[in-house]
């Protein structure tokens, strides 16, 4: 911010004052010149539409509509078991979904390293669920997994189950929707991290006689771990903010009453913007704590070049 404020003043006095080494030059040496003006719209935009609303929401959450001290919203949230449980319900959905997505995508990405025929088609197909989004996935899951849907028909037809399994309007439905939209995302990220690891490292270990499993666990996996940590964080953020699928294929007032529904409900059904902001802030804090823990763990891992010694 300081940079953008000083830039215009640094531009004009240079002509007036020849004695002093122009301020403009001294600033330019530190990287401040007229080009920084180009940054102004962007920064202004983010400050006005992102930082300001966030801070506004933060202070609003300390001004409860029903009075009772500035922490009243937070006290009310944590005192009410129905509200408090939303954190647990969200974590119970988001953490296993994110872990599963990352864990499954590693062997698949590993098996699909390198170029093979149809790789681009496969990637395109994987991008499809991400582009289609959660709302369409939810609508499709309602048809497909419903008691008369194809999935249950196959299961009963193969005599795996006698009665159709209840897969929608409960925890399972939301979980599956998180897998369908989350797995391709985790896979694409993992495989792009994996493609950054030099295959010659693996080959070098192979010439020294390391078996495949050892090459994976001793070489590829440690190099991949920092990337996996980031993949996990992003998958978790996606799963944690689950809203449409929890409403549509879940049981929004029961087992999938996740925190984003609680925040939405408070703000736009009860018109208690103050409480809604408070829940949104709690959501942000919980999420940042988890991400912080993962990234702290990541910093203990090996971070460095993933390419071989010689180019």
């Amino acid at each position, binding site marked *: 911010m300081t940079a953008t404020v000083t830039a215009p003043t640094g531009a004009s006095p240079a002509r007036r004052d020849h004695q002093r080494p122009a301020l403009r030059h001294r600033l330019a040496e530190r990287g401040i010149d007229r080009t920084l003006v180009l940054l102004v719209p*962007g920064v202004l935009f983010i400050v006005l*539409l992102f930082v300001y609303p966030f801070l506004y929401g933060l202070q609003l959450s300390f001004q409860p509509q029903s009075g009772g001290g500035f922490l009243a919203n937070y006290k009310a949230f944590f005192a009410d078991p129905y509200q408090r449980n939303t954190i647990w319900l969200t974590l119970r959905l988001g953490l296993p979904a994110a872990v599963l997505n990352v864990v499954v995508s590693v062997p*698949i990405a590993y098996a699909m390293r390198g170029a093979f025929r149809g790789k681009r088609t496969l990637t395109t197909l994987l991008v*499809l669920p991400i582009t289609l989004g959660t709302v*369409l996935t939810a609508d*499709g899951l309602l048809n497909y997994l419903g008691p008369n849907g194809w999935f249950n028909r196959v299961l009963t037809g193969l005599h*795996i189950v006698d009665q159709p399994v209840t897969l929608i309007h409960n925890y399972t439905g939301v979980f599956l929707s998180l897998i369908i939209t989350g*797995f391709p995302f985790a896979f694409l990220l993992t495989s792009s991290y994996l493609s950054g690891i030099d295959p010659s490292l693996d080959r070098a270990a192979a010439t020294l006689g390391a078996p495949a499993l050892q090459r994976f666990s001793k070489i590829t996996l440690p190099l991949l771990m920092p990337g996996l940590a980031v993949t996990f964080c992003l998958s978790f953020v996606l799963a944690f903010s689950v*809203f449409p699928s929890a409403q549509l294929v879940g049981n929004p007032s029961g087992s999938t009453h996740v925190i984003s529904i609680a925040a939405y409900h408070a703000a736009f059904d009860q018109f208690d913007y103050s409480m809604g902001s408070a829940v949104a802030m709690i959501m942000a804090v919980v999420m940042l704590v988890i991400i912080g823990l993962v990234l702290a763990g990541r910093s203990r891992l090996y971070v460095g070049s993933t390419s071989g010694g010689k180019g």
Partner: protein
Amino acid sequence: MATATATGPTTATAPAPGARPRRALSGTPGRWLVWGVVAFFFVNLAGVILSVVVSSVSTTWFDSWFPDGFTSHWYGDAWSDFSLGHVLLVTAEVAAFVVVVSLLIGVPASYVLARRDFPGKKIVMLLFLLPVLIPPITYGIPLATVLYKLHLAGTLTGVLLINLVPAVPFVVLTVTPFIEQIDPRLEAAARMCGAPTRKVFSRVLAPLLVPGILAAAVLILVRTVGMFELTFLAAGPGSDTLVVALYNSVFAAGIRAQQSVDAMAVIYTGFMVVLLVIGLRFVNPSQLVTRVKEEATK
């Protein structure tokens, strides 16, 4: 999972172990297991999408593998029931506006971030990174509250503003590496030949940056059309985009015939697939989730 485990043992015996020992050891069963899991995923994904498509053209479909008959009148119903003409117009307006404005704001900013080193650069970078990292619904609720206070929520302006929030940082993050790849000496040469800043931009940088701008534009377009949470928070009657209209109709299931809802879902899918096909002509798919490193290493 059933298919995955079933294919494993049967195919593991197929390849001759003597032909390429290393390959066989490195996990033929494992490889088939992987392909099985992927196939299982795609079978189910196809089921999810096809069940919507089939349902949208069926007369009645309750307790059978396939519907009793086929009809196309649900599309007409959906078109008039959900006033899809208007919804599509709003969607196109929002998408076009967001793409153009986010490029106008984002590209100059990414130029500075790619070329200059100035005090506070890290903070600015963080500012542009946060809206991409924080899920929309978290910052969307306070932002929508502000919009309500300004009486902008429920209007097209509100929808446009709220959709710009993730778009601008996304343009910055996508375009910055493209600018970093352009040799700064080209600009210096143009300046030495006497080109003013405006011309350096329009004659030198812009043409070289076309791939980057196209990539950013396509990604923003797909993301904006598919952006549910933010639009949902800011939209009101008359300013719904397609995805919000779809959500509302699925949520209010029972009011309309399921086939009509599915018809709208198919229209939405078609819309997205067309965008995707156009997009993939310009962009590498993995760029949808992350910026590719391949570009830099090429």
